[in-house]
């Protein structure tokens, strides 16, 4: 049930509003009721009382302006006098864009699938992102609430969907240890999510010295760690694919062979077996890489393959190897 209330409506308007709501009920996408504790509040801003309420709304309230003209150009507006069509349109839009069901309580959400499903997914030969941290992150990013993602024994991860940023303890890209990998590969039954306020997050950032990362960093890491060389579906191994853009390796821990894969997949359209063969990468590594690229949205499937044959003299190859070895002398990369 979706709820809303009103403030500073004049004369018969409260009664009129209730009747109109009943009248349009069947044409609404959701059920609505008048509730004095609702977050959504219709305010007559043509009255002094309404204006002052508009200036100082209660915390977390979402206000709808009620006036002859939308002079203040607010997104949520109901023209005076109330007409069925404008009311239907407004409420359906509100239902779609503004969360206004029963008051959202900060609650601990256990993700939905059954324990049996999760066990099955973990043992599966296929990588189903929705059963892992990466899927949880994707889901959070579709909403608007700042969310704390917690896994017992690991530091929390805070996601701010609107900014596509997250906060957590500093990640040493070249020293991701086994424990951290376990966190990034966590399955949804090990994860707890809780919405937090911006103020709470601010406090945590200060107290815990949290560091900001783009969400892509966490999506990449969690996909890489959970994928474990598994195709995303049975058909995935025969699909032709390419990259539409370079992964932003400045944001991700990477191995030099990831560079080779990216370079090859930007120029060629091939299936994973072809990619593995041409880049001398293990199939597992290719699959993990393509899964991570798919999660961050830079992988594209194609109908036909296209290979640009490139013959590099062996001496050149060995020279590049020597240069890379020299460069890696003081910069070490760990997956």
């Amino acid at each position, binding site marked *: 049930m979706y709820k809303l209330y009103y403030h500073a409506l004049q004369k018969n308007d409260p009664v009129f509003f209730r009747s109109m709501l009943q009248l349009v009920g069947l044409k609404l996408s959701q059920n609505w009721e008048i509730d004095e504790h609702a977050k959504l509040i219709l305010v007559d801003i043509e009255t002094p009382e309404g204006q002052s309420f508009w200036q100082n709304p209660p915390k977390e309230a979402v206000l709808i302006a009620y006036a002859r003209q939308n002079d203040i150009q607010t997104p949520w507006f109901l023209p005076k006098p109330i007409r069925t069509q404008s009311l239907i349109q407004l409420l359906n839009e509100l239902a779609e864009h503004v969360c206004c069901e029963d008051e959202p309580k900060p609650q601990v959400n256990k993700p939905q699938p059954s324990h049996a499903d999760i066990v099955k997914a973990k043992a599966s030969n296929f990588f189903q992102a929705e059963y892992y941290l990466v899927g949880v992150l994707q889901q959070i990013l579709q909403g608007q609430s700042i969310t704390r993602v917690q896994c017992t024994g690991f530091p929390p991860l805070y996601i701010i969907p609107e900014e596509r940023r997250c906060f957590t303890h500093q990640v040493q890209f070249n020293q991701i240890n086994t424990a951290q990998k376990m966190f990034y590969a966590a399955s949804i039954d090990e994860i707890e999510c809780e919405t937090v306020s911006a103020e709470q997050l601010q406090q945590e950032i200060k107290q815990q010295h949290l560091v900001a990362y783009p969400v892509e960093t966490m999506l990449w890491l969690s996909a890489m760690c959970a994928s474990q060389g598994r195709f995303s579906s049975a058909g995935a191994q025969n699909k032709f694919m390419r990259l539409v853009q*370079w992964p932003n390796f400045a944001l991700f821990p990477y191995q030099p062979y990831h560079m080779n894969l990216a370079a*090859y997949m930007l*120029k060629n359209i091939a299936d994973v077996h072809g990619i593995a063969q041409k880049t001398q990468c293990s199939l597992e590594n290719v699959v993990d890489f393509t899964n991570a690229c798919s999660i961050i949205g830079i992988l594209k499937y194609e109908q036909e393959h296209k290979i640009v044959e490139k013959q590099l003299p062996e001496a050149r190859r060995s020279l590049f190897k*020597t240069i890379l070895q020299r460069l890696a002398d003081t910069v070490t990369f760990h997956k």
Partner: protein
Amino acid sequence: MRKDQIKLVFTGNMGAGKTTAIASISEIPVINTDVLMSSGASADKERTTVAMDYGELTLGSGEKLFLYGTPGQQRFDYMWQILIQGGLGLIILIDNSGDDPIGDLARYLDSFHDFIQETGAVIGVTHTDDAPRPDLQMYYHYLQERGLQLPVFPIDARSRESVVMLIQALLAILEYG
């Protein structure tokens, strides 16, 4: 190119960090030809390279990898053509806090067009902390318009890891791209 000459060329606009990038990986102090700027130029950098920067890295095989930096300003473009001769590939550094970073990139892509076609290039964008716009997508959009698939990474020219990442990507393109 002489058989024993292996070189990488860094180019990019004034203040983008070419000298710094070379210094971050060179095993010898960078030899540079930077001079005090007269007030004719616009950037607030005090010194500018007029001939080249030069650094070295000895490879395991005993061969040397030469690192050359070009002058940034277009006025010195005759040096660009001299320095790229025999280069393995090009590293383009763009200062994102400049007036028109995408325009700067366009100039280098035009000037080094043939060399990039023959070899390859990577783009490192510096000062993105102070100047987040244009963002990476805007660079990629521009490259796409030109039909190029070069990698663009935000980097810190002072960081060895950043510069190594650019070179790794460049070598990957040369070998697999």
